[in-house]
């Protein structure tokens, strides 16, 4: 299991359940390495503001992560983490490798909407 404070997805079935039960889901599929840890950290920080988004992680080397590794949207990817954004169960965006907080915010705001600050 990844050493983060995010919701851990351990099986493909659980991922399928989460994306069917939540309108907006961000899944970071990676390892505990230098390109992945910053993205987990960003998600942990944004979780507080983006209450309408479910933030999760999944172990890249798990067999169950085939559900992400086999997505058509990631076939050109050659850098972890694979970060997948699901809306109503469908992939709306996927990124490869490390991202900055502002890059993540741009995607979240565009596809899931800005957080309600009230």
């Amino acid at each position, binding site marked *: 299991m990844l*050493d983060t404070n995010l919701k851990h997805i351990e099986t493909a079935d659980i991922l399928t359940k989460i994306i069917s039960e939540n309108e907006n889901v961000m899944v970071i599929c990676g*390892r*505990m*390495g*230098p*390109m*992945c*840890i*910053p993205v987990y*950290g*960003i998600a942990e*920080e944004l979780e507080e503001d983006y209450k309408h988004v479910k933030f999760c992680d999944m172990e890249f080397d798990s067999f169950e992560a085939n559900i992400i590794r086999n997505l058509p949207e990631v*076939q*050109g*990817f*050659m*850098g*972890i983490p694979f970060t997948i954004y699901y809306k109503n169960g469908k992939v709306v965006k996927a*990124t*490869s*490798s*490390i991202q900055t*907080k*502002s890059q993540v915010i741009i995607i979240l705001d565009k596809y899931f909407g800005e957080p309600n600050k009230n």
Partner: protein
Amino acid sequence: MDANNYYDAIIIGAGPAGLTAGIYLSRAHIKTLIINEGTIGGQMIFTHEIANYPGLESVSGYQLANTMKKQAKMFGCNIKSNVSIKDVNLNDELKKVVLSDGNIYNSKTIIIASGGRPRSLNAIGEALFKGKGISYCATCDGDFFTNKDIIVVGGGNSALEEAISLTKYVNKITILHQFNHFQAFQHAINEVKNHPKINFMMGSTINEFIGNEKLEKVRVTNLKTGESNYLKIDGVFIFIGYIPNTEFLKGKIDLNEFGEIIVGPGMNTNIKGVYAAGDSIVKLFRQITTAVGDGTIAALSASDYLHKQNAKQ
């Protein structure tokens, strides 16, 4: 001034130097804020295994960073990470840090521990193919290049050691370096020179990354002749050193020609009440242990400065 945004000390940066300073200051009951532009831990989290940190036989950089963070927080240190610094005012007695989100923080003393970041080539297409053929981490992405031909850019210890670690995955490695000699330790040079999967392209640089969905070729220029060639390649790993995160300090504090902060023995800068520590200062060896030492000295100096300032009032 918003009292909630006032601190006795502000530390810029949450690598080992900044976190150590945060631990020392907070433990001394000095109201301290750490402002960090990236991930907590800085370059430390890039280290898979640390085996030479005294007192710990083996620890990952991530674990060590998390422990330091917990320790600082336990003593009451406030940490804001993944923020963007818009401006700093260091000269006034009451220092100021302005964030891009509009928040302004004031303090009597500032410790700059902003660290460094991996240098990029700044070649055409580099941002486009990051994670799609360009990588900065062999342990993270090496297995994507199994049986492929790759280039490793750089000539220091990191480049040569990472090239050796990549040989277990790839078919062939070309080490491409801007100079005609390496800066690495001799044992690393010997190892790459004797490796059957590694060959060399010296005195050259990559100017352009080209491809569609992923990287397909690069334009390489010989720096002596100026001649350019296209090279079909599956991947490029870039290890060309670090640059200090001091752009926001230009014209505000004394830096050397490399952009490193000039400090005295107490980690004091040329500005009263402003100290610096860690990878962003002028120094010979950049290690977690040396950063921790710098952070300690900077915190003790800042604490002494605050004590004297308070005694004056």
